[in-house]
């Protein structure tokens, strides 16, 4: 690939893939890309990240999102975990999503829920969300286990930190994933 004499900046390429450029700038970027194999390669490296993020199902979902996944034909199974519970959960071959309904917490006055998931054996953080969606009425957070979680450590501790006007409440659940 011939190096580009005036390469497009990665900032511009990220804005382009975010769909955040004015039409004239977007056209300019595309005209450059069509004449430049080097910048096309750079654009592809940005796109691999942005388009994977776009298609990704987040690790915590809302009830409405879950309904949409079901409507799209995804095979979903829900399993409820109580605070402090530690048990196995099987991700069958016939499933697309295994939802862990992390319940038993009072979320009626919650202002924010932080969720972290760490490897039970090493303590390494696997997932961290500072502002996880939650169902205040049902008192639950819906953790969305997906097939690619199989590449992560199987035994995980999920911790919820619930911010409320009177302080912070911490609850944990231990899930031992078993993928068929």
């Amino acid at each position, binding site marked *: 690939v011939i190096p580009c004499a005036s390469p497009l900046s990665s*900032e511009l390429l990220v804005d382009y893939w975010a769909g955040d450029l004015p039409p004239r700038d977007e056209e300019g970027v595309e005209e450059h890309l069509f004449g430049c194999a080097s910048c096309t390669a750079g654009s592809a490296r940005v796109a691999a990240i942005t388009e994977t993020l776009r298609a990704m199902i987040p690790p915590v979902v809302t009830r409405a999102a879950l309904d949409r996944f079901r409507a799209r034909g995804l095979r979903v199974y829900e399993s409820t975990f109580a605070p402090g519970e530690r048990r196995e959960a099987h991700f069958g071959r016939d499933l697309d999503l295994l939802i862990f309904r992390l319940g038993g917490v009072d979320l009626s006055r919650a202002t924010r829920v932080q969720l972290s998931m760490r490897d039970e054996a090493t303590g390494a953080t696997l997932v961290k969300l500072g502002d996880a969606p939650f169902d205040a009425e049902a008192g639950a957070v819906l953790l969305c286990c997906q097939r690619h979680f199989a590449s992560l450590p199987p035994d995980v501790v999920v911790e919820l930190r619930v911010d409320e006007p009177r302080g912070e409440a911490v609850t944990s659940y231990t899930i031992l994933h078993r993928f068929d």
Partner: protein
Amino acid sequence: LEWPTRSASEIAWSATAACYFARLVELDRNASDAQLVRAIAASGNGAREAEAELCRRFAPRIRLYGLRHLRDEDLARDLVQAVLLGVLEAARGGRVKDPERIDRFMLGACRNQATRARETGLRAQPLQAQHDTAAPEIEHLDLGGLMLCLAKLDERARQVVLLSFNEERSAVEVAARLQTTAGNARVLRHRAVAALRRCLDASAEASS
């Protein structure tokens, strides 16, 4: 540029065959895009190789254009075939008026074809044509690895990339959510994407 009126399967096979079989022959990879277009128009020795080389050079650009505007990998693959076939036929027929601007000609063809795909909602090509070697796959990331890299970002950076791409929020909307300026949201977004790229490259290197 007039689009071919042949059946979808004929179009797909023609584009695939032209791009695949011609690649088997040696070609001067240093030829300019314009030289390739002229070689195709002359239809002499080397025309097939020139077609293959033109496909090789432009397929990734068309594919990315398709992903960006059609937001669908299958539709992007179809766009590659439809655009390349249309352009090759125009080149064969000497209808590319300015070979020096073949890149703009390709881009124009992409815009027309993508608009048509969006308006009609129809696929340009049948599924059987998707093994076309002229439409390379975009890099597929390890989703588990991406999650680990996301966990390594600071909270603000993680929020910015998830809001921007997973929730399709503009920089202005992200800025409002994070109580910052749109310019700062763009900077955070760019840095976060760059950090994810470095993290994924490092873990790929470590595992190889």
